[in-house]
């Protein structure tokens, strides 16, 4: 179980995260909020990609605040980047095999990697030998990124806005990946999202604004409140972009 205690993060005198405290008791937590609210920074701090200015991170009661990224990975944290990283020369199969784990035989590694790639809508036969370079589109890279994080099947998987770069219609068909990860593992998922479909299947929704947790509550409860408010709003999708709508609403 993940626990954040008094996490603060400042850069150039600006407070990005202000005294964040929360315990991830539930298995599916959706983090949402406006641009610049600190969502990505929060996930990066959990993974160790960014060091907090102060505060403490506990995983199963153990302090991991000072652990390097790879040791957090070994302890069971996975991370899907919002902007997937490209590699010249490395193939999809190289990283997928790394993701599914060294303990499997080569044939088992391949079979599992193929299953997961198929799950994100990519035909393994066509993609396993592809290089993770500029020849893959942004959408393809994003699907592979999601597949790699899911393939690790760890106790905590962090997804930084998986819908970014994927069109809405394609993303709808990817939601089952998160559902399957939830179903097939006993691990927890923390996912940054603005998608109503994701928010509607979350156990808890964490709403971050200006570096502060404004709300952390039962997902269904929040979503039903939103439903009630829907009649007075033109917006159908909960996004930070709703501020552009004439009758946009805030989650409070």
């Amino acid at each position: 179980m993940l626990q954040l205690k008094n996490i603060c993060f400042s850069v150039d005198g600006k407070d990005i995260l202000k005294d964040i405290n929360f315990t991830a008791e539930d298995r599916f937590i959706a983090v949402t909020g406006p641009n610049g609210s600190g969502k990505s920074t929060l996930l990066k701090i959990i993974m160790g990609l960014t060091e907090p200015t102060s505060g403490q991170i506990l995983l199963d009661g153990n302090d991991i605040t000072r652990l390097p990224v790879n040791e957090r990975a070994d302890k069971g944290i996975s991370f899907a980047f919002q902007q997937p990283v490209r590699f010249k020369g490395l193939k999809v199969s190289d990283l997928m095999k790394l993701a599914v784990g060294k303990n499997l035989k080569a044939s088992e590694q391949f079979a599992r990697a193929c299953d997961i790639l198929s799950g994100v809508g990519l035909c393994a036969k066509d993609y396993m030998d592809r290089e993770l370079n500029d020849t893959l589109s942004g959408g393809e890279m994003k699907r592979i990124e999601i597949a790699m994080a899911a393939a690790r099947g760890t106790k905590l998987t962090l997804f930084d806005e998986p819908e970014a770069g994927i069109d809405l219609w394609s993303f709808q068909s990817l939601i089952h990946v998160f559902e399957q990860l939830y179903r097939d593992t006993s691990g927890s998922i923390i996912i940054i999202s603005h998608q109503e479909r994701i928010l509607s299947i979350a156990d808890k929704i964490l709403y971050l604004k200006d570096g502060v947790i404004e709300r952390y509550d039962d997902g269904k409860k929040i979503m039903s409140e939103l439903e009630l408010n829907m009649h007075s709003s033109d917006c159908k999708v909960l996004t930070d972009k709703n501020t552009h709508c004439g009758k946009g609403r805030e989650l409070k």
Partner: protein
Amino acid sequence: MMNEIQKSLLKEVAALDALPTGAYNIRSDGSGIARNTTANIDIITKQDKQGIDIIIRPGTKNESVHIPVIISQSGIEELVYNDFFIGEDCDVTIIAGCGIHCAGKDDSKHDGIHSFYVGKNSKVRYVEKHYGEGEGRGKRLMNPTTIIELEENAVMKLETSQIGGIDDTLRITKAVLKENAGIIIHDKILTAGTQHANAEIHVEMNGDGSNCDIISRGVAKESSYQEVTIKIDGNAACSGHAECDSIIMDNGVILAVPQLKATNVEASLIHEAAIGKIAGEQLLKLMTMGLTEKEAEELIIKGFLQ
């Protein structure tokens, strides 16, 4: 009978655990130690100088020739000429390569000059790997020169690499292409310590419809130096592309020199060159998958030179 060092070098440069099938000529410490010819591929020792002629009959398909060279003693220096005469309508694979194990104080040096005359409509895949090892003070030196003449519609693919252990090298590749001939060159170099590598690749496209694609990848670690010069001459209605990518590490130095020359308005030539360090985000991505920073770096380099 080969000793363990010779066997190890042979495996490293030609991926051979035993004698290969097909035609082969294995040279060790200055002389030939094993040879096999086939009905379609003949290998003849040169009389006027060190080296062999490899003669491949027209129409030979799906056959291979292995010609590895190994040097397992320090103090050996040799200059070898290997000439390949490949008939028309062939489809063959040629595996070359040189491995040096230098355990003594004297330098070991192999200069190999390979000339290819590739007949009309033939396809040739050429794989050449250079490798050095040994704790001796003597330097491991290699200077390969590859000269290629491609007749009409002939296609050649070269996969050349020098992955560690060579202290000093000058690698020269020159190719001349006639009508509709094509050449693909994938060259890889890894240097470390105070090693010095200089590679010059020069392709002349003289026939209409000819084409070339050159991809050079280098990694310069520690205080090593690499210089890569790629020249493409377009003298006809042809297309040429060169990509020169390098990763620089530690105190390494890399000089990439592209040169395109067109003497025909129908020539289309492109050159891309990039030098940079390993991106921090690449390291972090692999670390999120459980690799240490060093393991991540090694995997990135391995992939880059794959």
